[in-house]
């Protein structure tokens, strides 16, 4: 049996981790569920977890983000309870990306509406000849 753990990160104004947990319990699937501050962690057989999370994603397609996790919830080598507190390894990247999730959500919404963003032109670096001319122009004549 191929057992996996998936993290469901919720960044939604209309959904709480507790709502997702209730929905997961309602499904009666053979999975282990853990509610966290950022969302939910679900452990179980790959097929079961994938199909379950695809239905959960429909609750708010732009507010639910999913990724796999190597360790199971409560793993003593990662869990804060057994490591005397502090952020667990991997939390910092999650925290830095969590700040971007509202932007990503609105980008996904715009993409579904068929909006094509204007690709920004990269600023060219200052030409060396131009820089030389600027320096010459500002030099004080003696």
């Amino acid at each position: 049996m191929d057992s996996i753990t998936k993290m469901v990160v919720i960044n939604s104004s209309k959904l709480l981790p507790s709502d997702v947990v209730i929905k997961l319990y309602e499904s009666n699937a053979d999975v282990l569920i853990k509610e966290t501050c950022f969302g939910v962690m679900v452990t179980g057989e790959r097929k079961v977890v994938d199909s379950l999370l695809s239905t959960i994603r429909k609750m708010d397609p732009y507010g639910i983000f999913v990724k796999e996790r190597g360790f199971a919830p409560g793993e003593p080598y990662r869990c804060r309870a057994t490591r005397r507190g502090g952020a667990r390894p991997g939390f910092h990247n999650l925290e830095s990306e969590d700040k971007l999730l509202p932007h990503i959500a609105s980008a996904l919404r715009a993409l579904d509406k068929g909006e094509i963003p204007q690709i920004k032109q990269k600023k060219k670096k200052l030409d060396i000849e131009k820089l030389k001319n600027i320096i010459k122009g500002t030099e004080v004549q003696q």
Partner: protein
Amino acid sequence: MKVFIYPTNSLILSDLVERFGHEPLAIMQEVGKKVKSQGLDSPPLNITPEDPKLGLKYAAVEVPSGVRGRMSLFDPLLRNAEAAIVVRDPVISFGCMGCARTNELVNFLLRAKKIPLLELDYPSNEEEAKEFVYKISEFLKSLKPAEEKK
């Protein structure tokens, strides 16, 4: 199609690749195998003497063991990668959480593999995020879906 993502533990990239119908190749899968596989040889991460040998494929023996250890985890991901999405200079790769040499080596190996590669910067505002998501969706649409390949 199997898409390698960098940073290899990115939530955003992993989610977007899966959302657009491809399989993300992330480090979490490899860490999971080391933790969950049956018959632990050396807990907690089940790193066996075989693993540094995998790392030796990429880096010489005098290279710091951290690089070889990391490369042993990256090896199956790099071998299976059919396309890649790379975010340039992610914040997480700076400092003690990252390994600059491994990151450079991984980026070099991806380029040397000559697979479809998309390079981006992390967005800092909504406009950049729209461009970020649009570029990823167009890139992933241009790849063959996983089912078609079979």
